[in-house]
């Protein structure tokens, strides 16, 4: 394997909310085009970690470097997909993607073409003119994904993006996300409490402890690509699943 560039480098990161320590001395690196999931119980600080990388919250101690530059606030080098789709209800699906490109130096036509292309990438061709209220939850989240990809951020941060969807739609979205990633390589950090989702989508799964959250394990997932839904019932997949579930359940550091 060739040496890959580090995209995100987190060192000595601690976050306190008053008396409560949410994150405790986090060290973590994400390589270029790597798909990394962060799993843990609710309240373990995994979403806080993502918000700090996004620049929406500030660490009490430690630093986050993205492409070698310290994060001091939100920026377009990091795309964020939130748990709710956060679409602008007065704009169409196409308009919502174009919204992210508004200040890019390009013609209207070029902007429209890029937006169309990304809606196509998330299989929403034909829904360009629909308003968010007319789209299902899964479709809304796909528009949000297209919007975040459209401006080519260095890293895509996803905060339990499928948590609010029903089980079947969630499965569909995981497949779609994996397909998109395999076609359109980029660095992804996915925060989730769904272990199956983490194993299915990721190259590496980071397991966090209970609060104060720190990294308990860093498990490489050596399932072949492209991933296929049938892998979920394979023995190797179940082994990863069991291992990760066991760690979270027992909350003891892996050897």
């Amino acid at each position, binding site marked *: 394997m060739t040496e890959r560039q580090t995209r995100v480098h987190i060192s000595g990161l601690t976050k306190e909310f008053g008396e409560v320590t949410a994150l405790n001395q986090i060290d973590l690196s994400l390589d270029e085009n790597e798909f990394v999931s962060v799993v843990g119980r609710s309240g373990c600080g995994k979403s806080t970690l993502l918000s700090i990388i996004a620049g*929406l919250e500030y660490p009490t101690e430690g630093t986050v470097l993205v492409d070698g530059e310290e994060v001091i606030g939100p*920026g377009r080098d990091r795309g964020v997909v939130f748990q*709710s789709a956060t679409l602008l209800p007065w704009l169409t699906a196409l308009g919502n993607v174009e919204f992210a490109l508004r200040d890019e130096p390009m013609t209207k036509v070029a902007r429209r073409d890029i937006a169309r292309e990304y809606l196509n990438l998330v299989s929403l061709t034909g829904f360009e003119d629909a308003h968010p*209220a007319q789209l299902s939850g899964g479709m809304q989240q796909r528009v949000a994904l297209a919007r975040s990809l459209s401006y080519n951020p260095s890293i895509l941060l996803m905060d339990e993006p499928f948590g609010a969807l029903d089980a079947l739609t969630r499965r569909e979205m995981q497949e779609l996300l994996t397909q998109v990633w395999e076609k359109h390589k980029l660095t992804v950090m996915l925060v989730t409490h769904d272990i199956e989702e983490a194993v299915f989508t990721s190259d590496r799964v980071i397991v966090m402890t209970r609060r104060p959250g720190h990294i308990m394990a860093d498990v490489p997932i050596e399932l072949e690509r492209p991933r296929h839904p049938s892998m979920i019932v394979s023995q190797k997949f179940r082994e990863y699943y069991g291992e990760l579930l066991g760690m979270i359940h027992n909350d003891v550091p892996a050897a």
Partner: protein
Amino acid sequence: MTQQTLGKSAEGVRRKSSTSAVAKRAKRRLGQRISRRYYLTIAVLVFAGLIVVWWASTTFGLVSSLFLPTPQDVVKAVGQQSSNGELWSDMGASVYRIGVGYLIATVMSIPLGTLMGSSARWEAAIEPLMDFIRYMPVVAFVPLTILWVGTDDSQKFLIIWMGTFFQQVLLVSDAVRQVPNPLINLGETLGLSRGQILIRIVLPSSMPRVWDALRISLGWAWTWLVVAELVAATSGMGYRITVAQRYFATDVIIGYVLILGVLGLLFDQVMRALGRRFFSYQKGRTS
């Protein structure tokens, strides 16, 4: 499509066969919906009922016609006012005053309310003051405004502005405060500046609620208009009412009061219809 029609007809058959069961089951429940036609029927009946009571009590002499003229007399008085042109010039003067006063208030309250709703510093600077002024009785300012600007149209604008602006600012800031936080986070992660977030996200996002606030405050504007015109005016709906009072022309007074009600209702319906049109994107999948 075919499935839908099939489903519908099947439902129809089922409905027919079990009418008696449905009738037994049909207890009224809180929050129950009724058809639009049924709704309109009830509303029209209430109006008609009141008119009948009015007609009967005046025609059979239960109430002196000096205090309450018959509906026929009121219609006649309004007809007369209409044919001699006074009604239309009065209405024109009043609508013009409302238009200007209300527009000034709105143009000022939207930016100020937006600032107040989105920045704690602006809120601290403005909100307590607005809250305080809001509770001062506007009516009490009428003599002062006459001293300040005289009795021409600008005094009417001022009273309408005073009556609506302070309420609007608070309603607008409240609408802005309800913009979901994730939308603001989105703007930040897209690299937008605070001003850009305000204009591209916060303002359009709060628009449906702001529009509602404007609609409600337009209703109050009518009240303040008439107050201003009753005290000092040489034209307008309120002015005609004071003139009519001098001649005990209660039929004109009642006619004008009813017309004011109809005008208010009409403006409200127009605002509602416009709102439905502007914000139709909020409607979900109907089928």
